[in-house]
C-alpha cells in the first residue's frame, strides 16, 4: 500500500496539468497504456472468456455468456465508484448497495413512466442515486472511522427495510418491480396486452445477440454487454482522471492526515462529500445498467451483504489502485458463477484417474469449498488477502513482477562486478 502511493504521487503531480504532460486524452503514457489494455480486454471479452470449445469438458469454465459478462462490467463500475471513496479517502462505507438499489428503482420507474429507451433510465438512475448520496453523505460525513461505517450501514438498512415494507407501492416490496405492458410510457407507443416490454437503445433490443461459430467454438456478441462495457470504459476513464487530478490529491490528503489539512485552512468536507456523491452516482449507474439488462429490481439488492460484496471486490482487487476494483469484481463474479456450478459429480469425473478410495477422499476434501460452499472459499480468500496482501491482487502482481525484476537486476550487478574483482 505505502510503496504504491509513493509510486503514484510523482505521476499524479506531473499529470495534474495534462497540457504540460502532453499525454493522450489527458493521460500519461502509462495510464493511457492501462486504459488501452482495459479497452482491449472489455471489447474482446466475449472471445477471451470463452477459451474452451463448446461441448468439451472444460466448457463449464467458459464465462463468455452475456449474463455473466454484463455482471462483470456492471459490478466493475460499482467497485470503481466505491474505490473512489474508499481507496482515495479511506472512508469505509458499509452501505453502498443502497445507492445501487435506489438507482435501480429510479431506472425502472423511468422505463415505466417515460420510455423503454435505456438512456433516460440510466440518467435517471445516476441523478436519483446522486441526490440520495448527497443526503446520506451530508449526514454521514459528519463523522469518520467506524462511526461513518455504522452510519452508512444504518442508512442502507433503513432503505432496505423501507423498500421491503412501507414503500411497497414504489418498490414492489418482496416481489420486486417488473415492467408491465400497461405501464404509462408517455414517450413510447402503447404495447399490446401480453407483449413483453423490453429495454432498448433507440429500437435496438438489449437482449440482441449474435453468435459467431469457429469450429467448435461459439462466441456470443451481445448488445447489452457492449453498452454496459462502454459505460464501464467511460467510468474507468473518469476514475483515472480523478485519481490523477488535484482533486484526487486532496482526497489522498484527507486519507493521510485530516488534521494537517484542517491546519492549512482547508475544510475536507466538500472534497469528501464530492467523492461520496461521485461514488454514489457510479453505484447508481451500475444499478441503472442492471435494470437495463434484466428490467427488474428487488429490494435484496440493497441488503447489507450486497454492500459487503462491493467491499470484498475492492479489497480483493486492491483498494486505491486503478485496475484493482475491476479485477476484484471480475474475480468474484467469475468464481461465484463458475465455482458454484461445480458439483460432486464433476469432481468425481476430474479425479477419476486416482484410485477409488483416494478419489473419494480427495473429492470429500474439496467438496465443501465448491458448489454451495463457494462462500467459504471466498471468505478464506478474502481473509488471506487482508492478512498477507493488504494491497489486494494488484499488490500481489506487483510483488511477483518485482521479484523477477530484482532477480534480473541481481544477475546483472553480479555479472558486472565479477570482472572488477
Amino acid at each position, binding site marked *: 500500500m505505502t510503496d504504491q502511493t509513493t509510486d503514484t504521487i510523482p505521476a499524479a503531480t506531473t499529470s495534474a496539468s495534462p497540457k504540460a504532460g502532453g499525454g493522450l486524452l489527458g493521460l500519461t503514457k502509462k495510464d493511457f497504456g492501462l486504459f488501452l489494455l482495459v479497452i482491449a480486454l472489455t471489447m474482446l471479452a466475449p472471445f477471451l472468456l470463452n477459451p474452451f470449445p463448446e461441448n468439451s469438458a472444460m466448457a463449464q469454465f467458459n464465462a463468455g455468456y452475456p449474463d455473466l459478462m454484463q455482471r462483470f462490467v456492471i459490478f466493475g463500475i460499482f467497485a470503481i465508484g466505491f474505490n473512489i471513496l474508499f481507496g482515495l479517502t479511506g472512508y469505509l462505507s458499509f452501505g453502498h448497495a443502497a445507492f445501487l438499489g435506489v438507482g435501480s428503482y429510479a431506472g425502472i420507474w423511468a422505463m415505466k413512466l417515460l420510455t423503454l429507451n435505456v438512456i433516460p433510465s440510466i440518467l435517471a438512475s445516476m441523478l436519483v442515486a446522486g441526490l440520495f448520496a448527497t443526503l446520506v453523505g451530508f449526514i454521514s460525513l459528519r463523522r469518520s472511522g467506524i*462511526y461513518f461505517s455504522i452510519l452508512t450501514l*444504518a442508512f442502507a438498512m433503513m432503505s432496505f427495510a423501507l423498500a421491503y415494507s412501507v414503500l411497497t407501492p414504489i418498490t414492489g416490496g418482496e416481489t420486486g418491480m417488473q415492467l408491465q405492458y400497461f405501464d404509462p410510457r408517455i414517450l413510447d407507443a402503447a404495447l399490446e396486452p401480453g407483449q413483453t416490454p423490453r429495454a432498448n437503445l433507440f429500437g435496438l433490443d438489449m437482449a440482441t445477440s449474435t453468435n459467431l461459430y469457429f469450429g467448435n467454438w461459439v462466441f456470443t456478441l451481445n448488445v447489452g454487454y457492449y453498452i454496459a462495457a462502454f459505460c464501464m470504459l467511460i467510468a474507468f476513464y473518469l476514475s483515472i482522471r480523478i485519481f490523477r487530478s488535484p482533486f484526487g490529491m486532496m482526497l489522498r490528503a484527507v486519507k493521510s492526515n485530516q488534521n494537517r489539512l484542517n491546519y492549512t485552512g482547508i475544510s475536507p468536507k466538500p472534497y469528501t462529500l464530492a467523492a461520496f456523491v461521485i461514488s454514489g452516482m457510479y453505484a447508481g449507474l451500475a444499478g441503472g445498467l442492471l435494470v437495463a439488462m434484466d428490467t427488474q429490481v428487488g429490494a435484496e439488492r440493497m441488503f447489507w451483504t450486497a454492500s459487503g460484496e462491493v467491499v470484498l471486490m475492492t479489497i480483493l482487487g486492491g483498494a486505491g489502485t486503478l485496475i484493482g476494483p475491476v479485477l476484484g469484481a471480475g474475480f468474484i463474479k467469475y468464481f461465484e458463477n463458475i465455482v458454484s456450478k461445480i458439483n460432486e459429480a464433476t469432481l468425481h469425473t476430474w479425479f477419476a484417474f486416482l484410485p477409488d478410495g483416494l478419489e473419494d477422499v480427495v473429492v470429500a476434501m474439496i467438496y465443501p469449498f465448491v458448489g454451495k460452499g463457494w462462500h467459504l472459499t471466498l471468505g478464506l480468500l478474502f481473509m488471506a488477502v*487482508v492478512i498477507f496482501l493488504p494491497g489486494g491482487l494488484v499488490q500481489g502482481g506487483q510483488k511477483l513482477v518485482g521479484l523477477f525484476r530484482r532477480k534480473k537486476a541481481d544477475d546483472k550487478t553480479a555479472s558486472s562486478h565479477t570482472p572488477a574483482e
Partner: protein
Amino acid sequence: MEAIILQVLNGLDKGSAYALIALGLTLIFGTLGVVNFAHGALFMLGAFCAVTFSNLLQLSHTVIDETRTDFLGNPLKVDVPYIYDIFGEAVGSSIIDWAVPLSILFAIPVMIALGVAMERGLIRHFYKRPHADQILVTFGLAIVLQEIIKYFYGANPIPTPAPEAFVGSFDFGVMLGFDPGGIVYPYWRLIYFLFAAFIIAGVFAFLQFTTFGMVVRAGMADRETVTLLGIDIDKRFTIMFGIAAAVAGLAGVMYTPINSPNYHMGMDFLVLSFVVVVVGGMGSLPGAVLAGFLLGIIEAFASMAQVLDILPGINQIIIYLVAIVVLLTRPRGLMGRKGVMED
C-alpha cells in the same frame, strides 16, 4: 398501562440479546481496541453449541424391544439414547429435555477456547493495523464461520425447544394486580431476561471486585503504565477476549428456544449490535448494556399496532433512526468515554 408494560417486557428479551452481544463487543473493543465484526458469528456459534450438545445427548443405539411389536408383528426396534443407559430412563429423558440450559456448561469452555484461539491465532496480528483492516478481516472470519456451520448443519433453522416446564406463557398481569389476560408473557423470555441480567451482573462484578478485573480495568485506562508495572496485560486481555466470546456464546445458547438457530442469525444480530455499541458509546460497558435494553424496548414500542397506524414501517427502521440521531447529536454516544475513538 398494561399495553406499556407488555411492550417493555417484549423489548426486554431482544434487548437482553443486544445488551449481551454489545457487552462482549465493548469488552473486546475496550481491552484490545479491536472492532470485531465476527462477534455475531460467536453468538451464532453459541447457539449451535446448544444444537450440538442436544444432538450429542440424543446419540442413541438401536435396541430390539421384545415386549412390543410393530405393525408387521416383528419385535419393535427402538432407538435408546446412550444417556438412558448411564442415568436410567427417567433421569435421561429429563436431561435431554433440559438440553438447552445444560448446554451452558458445554458452551462456556468451548466458547472461551474458541475466543482465545481466535485472538491468539488471528486478531493479535491486527493490533497495529488500521481499524478498517480489523473490520475487514473479522468480517471475512464471520463469513468463514457461518459457512462452516452451514456446511455441517444445513441452511434451515434447527428447532431447539426449551425444557417442557418453560414452554408456553403465563399471565404476568395477574401477579402485578392487573386484569387477567392483559399481560401474557412467555416463560422462556422472562428466563432469558433474568439470565442476561445475571450474566451482565457477573461480568461487572468480575471487573469490579476481583484483582484480575481491576488489572484489566487499569489496562483499559492506560495500557502502557500497566505494562511498565511488570504486568503481562496481553495475557489478561486474551482471557477477556475469551470471556467476551463466552458472553456472546451464552447469549446464543439461551436464545435458541426463542428463535430456531440458523447459520445467518449472527449477521442479523451483528449489524444491530454494532448500532447498539455506537449508540451506547464505544468502549463504555454500562453504555452498551443501557443502549441494548433501550433500543430493544424502543423497537418493541415501535411495533405496537397503534404506532404503526400513524407511522407505517417505523418498527423496521426505528433503531437506525435512533442511531443516526444519537450519533449526530451526541458524537460520543450515550455514555462514551472521552478520548475513545473520537474523530
